[in-house]
């Protein structure tokens, strides 16, 4: 708040005061001969006025300065009314009152959407809960009536199951509240679980598994991590190189600060210019368009998002026509920097 701007704002007041003083002076000059009174009255009035303007300026300056400072420091700027004290001058009080009302109305509005989202998430979770039953029944019917046709139906049921799971984790990835539990897990068990989950396709597509050095302990949520691994394995299956023998290799390295899980395949790889974009939502790239695979661009996006929530680093390297390497980095002290 510059003094110039402040004075500009007071221009009418100052003009009127000066005009008043000039008028008084004219009267004084006309009716009295006492020099003391001629000088004393206008000087007193003027200096009293200047003092009052100066005090007002200082008070306002202090208040607006704090407001600006606080607002620059605050991450959530709408909390300003909670942090700054109400000033003792009138228009400052009005301003704070307005800010408080705005905040209240904004928070109510945001809460409304929070509630709607929460409600929607609950519905999705319930829906997924429900849809699992017919999938399970369908699979049992297939098991009891094995023919070529039901085998094919089973494959479709597997796809439905996968898409359903993806939807569930998508809903979970968008909520603020924490619905995962970080604990010590054996990496080998988690990887094996994810491999087993995909065994039907891996076996029928004759994809070899080479897993070694996995007996390590990591801090993570077992269900979420299995989901992430599942998505990565499914990508390896989807984008395998059909011209040669496919293989997926799993291994881990333990470092001082973190453990890294490597998942290497010898699939068709990703265009160099596209590697940096694979974690973007909805990004399908050349492979998604040309391999006739109906990419959704959700899988890796979700992996990254869930990974970030769990405090994991997920990186991807790829060479076209040679294969793709996915690295999952588990910090050793992940309980210290888990993002909520």
């Amino acid at each position, binding site marked *: 708040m510059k003094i110039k701007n402040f004075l500009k704002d007071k221009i009418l007041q100052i003009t009127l005061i000066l005009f008043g003083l000039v008028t008084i002076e004219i009267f004084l000059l006309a009716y009295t001969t006492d020099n003391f009174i001629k000088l004393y009255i206008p000087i007193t009035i003027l200096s009293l006025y200047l003092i009052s303007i100066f005090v007002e300026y200082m008070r306002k300056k202090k208040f607006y300065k704090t407001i600006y400072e606080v607002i620059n420091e605050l991450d959530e700027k709408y909390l300003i009314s909670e942090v700054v004290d109400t000033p003792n001058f009138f228009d400052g009080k009005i301003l704070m009152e307005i800010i408080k009302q705005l905040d209240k109305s904004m928070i109510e509005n945001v809460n409304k959407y929070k509630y709607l989202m929460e409600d929607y998430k609950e519905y999705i979770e319930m829906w997924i*809960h429900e849809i699992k039953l017919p999938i399970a029944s369908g*699979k049992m*019917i297939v098991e*009891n009536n094995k023919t070529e046709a039901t085998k094919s139906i089973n494959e479709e049921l597997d796809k439905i199951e996968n898409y359903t799971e993806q939807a569930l984790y998508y809903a979970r990835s968008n909520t603020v509240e924490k619905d995962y539990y970080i604990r010590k897990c054996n990496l080998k068990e988690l990887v094996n679980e994810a*491999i087993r989950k995909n065994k039907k396709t891996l*076996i029928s597509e*004759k994809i070899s598994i080479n897993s070694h050095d996995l007996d390590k302990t990591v801090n993570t949520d077992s269900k979420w991590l299995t989901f992430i691994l599942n998505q990565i394995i499914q990508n390896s299956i989807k984008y395998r190189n059909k011209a040669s023998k496919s293989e997926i290799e799993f291994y881990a390295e333990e470092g001082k600060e973190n453990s890294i899980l490597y998942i290497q395949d010898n699939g068709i790889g990703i265009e160099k210019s596209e590697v940096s974009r694979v974690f973007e939502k909805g990004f399908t790239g050349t492979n998604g368009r040309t391999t006739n695979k109906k990419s959704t661009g959700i899988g890796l996006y979700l992996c990254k998002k869930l990974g970030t929530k769990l405090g994991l680093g997920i990186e991807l390297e790829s060479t076209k026509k040679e294969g793709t390497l996915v690295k999952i980095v588990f910090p050793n002290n992940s309980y210290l920097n888990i993002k909520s």
Partner: protein
Amino acid sequence: MQKILIVEDDEKLRDELEIFLNNNGYQAESLKQFQNTIQEILNIAPNLILLDINLPEANGEFICKEIRKKSNVPIIIITSSDNEMDELLSINYGADHYITKPFNIQILLAKINSVLRRMNIGLAQDKIIAPDFTINLSKSTLIKEGKEIELTRNELKILKCLNEKRDKIVSREELMEYLWESESFIDDNTLTVNITRLRNKLEELNLKELLETRRGQGYILKISQ
């Protein structure tokens, strides 16, 4: 025959499970209504219970807890909820396993088998006695008339799988899935090698004619004449 009780409110799943378990050598029964569940379960006195959590007029976790007070019968929870807290709660209430829908039916069967085997200690828990040979699971050997031959982990599993489906054709995929289930992620070539080795070992015990290859279909372990 071992009696398995299915406590599940979805009719279709219940019926199909019943058919499946009956086909796989168990006597399966199921509850049709859930008013007096705990007493009914205790009256039926099954060897194992498959229990759903969300039941009309009852809660699986509560049933589990109440049954545990009176009986040691193995309980496998089958539910749609893949929430870790539910799992923890069920296990704390005394459930033996927790399986989420849609489940892999072979895993369910394997879990039923292993739980029942553990319950019936003394009933050849580490030996499989077939009419023409014996498999010693703990020593991983194949025995016939006093002669004993060592089997590798994979050979043992292959023989076990073929023996469980005696006189039925088992496809290569089925064999591989069985091996993958126990975390031997072998590929096609390794399976061929393992089968050849197993066949050689069977030959040493004059059992060669038991294991037949059906071209394009798989393998079959026949019943000896």
